[in-house]
């Protein structure tokens, strides 16, 4: 235990760097550099509305990424969050739009779908000890199918802001005197603070980190690894549900059969933010910063006139570099 901080600190003696972590400093620098680069190259990028858009499109990835950081730290992964998010949004939206239920019920249903998916993953990966990659690959397909079945294959449109039952959209963005305020960011910050505390300051969080760095040793020291590994997938599931709500608030219309691939954006965000794919190390703040790199790239690259396919290439290269940094760090440590 205490492994989390130790690993992050291994490289330097500077107390400030130690406190924040090298990878995070690098990522913050990357964010600043990207922001400057895009602003210089495109005057249109230097607008308030662009900032709001970056926030708008970052909420759902942020929630997914915060959640998936936990399975990643246990040394596992959760591939079901993308389609899970879409099916949570579909089920919730279906109840509101087609069954006339209050918006709050739809939101609750979305959270429940996420949690159920988390339970399913926990059962497969923690209890039955299936390899998490395979288990969640299966549940990714299950989630995709369920969303389609429940809505009869139809796209679902959540109520618009102009409708009284569209109030949930103002959780993420309010308009004050014609100015859009991206207040959803506050929610993300709260989630980051809460989950950081859970991960670093509470016993369950420390157990999750411990079983990620050495599951066998953790088990031998008398800790119920099945229980804490399950918790990681449950957290991932809960945040999948939250992401579903955020996705509905941003895009309004959700089409069944979509969502596959979005989990990779979230996982990439966590990895860029310094979470180790081998488990045992990761921070929530780092994950959020990683997500911002992804969002900034996605929003900024079109502004400098890059064609759609080039954007994907660059995002991919950034991910590879981030993992490379992790590998080099590990090699130095060893």
């Amino acid at each position, binding site marked *: 235990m205490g492994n989390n901080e130790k690993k992050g600190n291994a490289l330097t003696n500077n107390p400030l760097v130690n406190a924040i972590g090298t990878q995070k400093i690098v990522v913050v620098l990357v964010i600043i550099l990207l922001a400057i680069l895009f602003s210089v190259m*495109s005057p*249109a990028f230097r*607008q308030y*509305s*662009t900032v*709001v*858009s970056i926030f*708008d*499109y970052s909420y759902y990835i942020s929630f997914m990424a915060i959640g998936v950081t936990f399975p990643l730290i246990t040394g596992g992964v959760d591939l079901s969050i993308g389609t899970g998010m879409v099916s949570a949004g579909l089920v919730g939206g279906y109840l509101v739009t087609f069954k006339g239920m209050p918006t709050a019920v739809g939101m609750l249903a979305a959270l429940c779908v996420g949690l159920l998916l988390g339970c399913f993953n926990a059962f*497969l990966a923690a209890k*039955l*000890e*299936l390899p998490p990659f*395979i*288990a969640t690959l*299966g*549940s*990714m*397909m*299950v989630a*995709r*199918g*369920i969303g*389609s*079945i429940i809505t*009869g*294959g*139809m*796209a679902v*449109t959540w109520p*618009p802001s*102009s409708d009284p039952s569209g109030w949930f959209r103002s959780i993420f963005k309010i308009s004050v005197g014609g100015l*859009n305020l991206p207040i959803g960011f506050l929610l993300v910050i709260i989630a980051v603070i809460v989950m950081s505390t859970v991960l670093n300051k509470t016993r369950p969080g420390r157990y999750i980190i411990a079983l990620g760095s050495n599951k066998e040793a953790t088990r031998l020291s008398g800790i119920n690894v099945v229980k804490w590994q399950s918790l990681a997938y449950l957290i991932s599931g809960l945040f999948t549900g939250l992401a579903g709500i955020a996705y509905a608030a*941003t*895009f*309004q*219309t959700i*089409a*069944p*059969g*979509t969502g596959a*691939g*979005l989990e990779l954006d979230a996982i990439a965000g966590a990895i860029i933010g310094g979470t180790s794919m081998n488990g045992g190390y990761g921070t929530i703040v780092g994950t959020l910063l990683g997500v911002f790199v992804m969002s900034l790239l*996605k*929003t900024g690259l*079109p*502004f400098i006139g890059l064609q*759609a*396919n080039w*954007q*994907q290439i660059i995002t991919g290269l950034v991910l590879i570099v981030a993992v490379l940094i992790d590998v080099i760090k590990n090699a130095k440590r060893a």
Partner: protein
Amino acid sequence: MKKKLFSVLLCAALIGTMVIGCGGNGGDAGTDDAGTSTEADSGDDGGDAAPAGDLNIEIVSKGFQHQYWQAVLKGAEQKADELGVKINFVGPNSESDIADQVQMLTNAINAAPKAIALAALDTNACLDAISQAQSAGIPIVGFDSGVPGAPDGAIVANAATDNYNAGALAAEESYKAALKDRIANASGTVRIGVMGQDATSESIVNRGLGFIDKICELVEADDKTVSVEGNDKYVSDAKGEKKDGADVIIEVVVPASVTNELSALDCQTLLNKDDIIAIYGSNQHSGDAMVTGDENLNKFGTEDGDVIGIAFDSGKVIKEAVKSGKFIGAITQAPVAMGEAVVDLCVKAANGESVSDIDTGCQWFTAENMDSEEIAQNLYD
């Protein structure tokens, strides 16, 4: 020993999961849950129709993702009721599930119907099944985007919107309503954005090309020059071409993959260009993305200086945007009429009558006429 047993259990659980997963994702879901069949109770209508109950038709659609298909289904059911035939209307979970649709088509052929209606997601993938149907003597009627590029004689007739004409209608109406003045009064180059969901689907591409070609024609008739830029497929297939220093630039954007986010970002990028005067989105996905992309910019509208929004298809979001004046108007197809026409064609083909293509038509709707009976029946949420 114990270990062995456990690994067997693991495998069983894994396979179980995959089966559930594939089942949910695959044909079962589409057939059992999205599919629906209608048996008409009215008896023999006389005339040329075959005896009721004998005549069964399999209809393989592109799925139910867009409410548009619900309206097609409604039309098909109405007509089946009227003619006293039995239809089985199925479709895959999403418009990218090409393999699922082929499976459904094969199932449809195995059900030995008197006729099959098909809206192919990908003609090439369906070729084997189509020749199987031909050798079984089952006539195939195309609908929606039909079965483009099918072998000669394989498709007896199509009931479809002429997408190229529909795109041209959007160009004509928006030009008349606003674009003409904007272009005439512009001091420099102006830009018109065209958003296409993809560059592979025949219907989407034709809607784009119809719009682009018509705009070129109208602008050139007013003695201005046009340059077509952006996505290579569209640029090479359009009649216009890329030229430097043109008065009007038509820029075609296609996202790398069909996600809400990428399309919304495409729209935002277009809206942020100084010379943009209008954006046309060629289906419901693009239209929805235009609304999302504009959310923080608020540039769409009908006032001078606003960007003119032109949409295609309806749905709650687009209807709202047209009603509030955010979009100047949109094209709607006639899905109910299409559903009726396809069943009609199938029955005629099954009875050995000669059949020919039907253009099921399209309409331009604006805030003014969208509540009229004629338009409202073709709009859906």
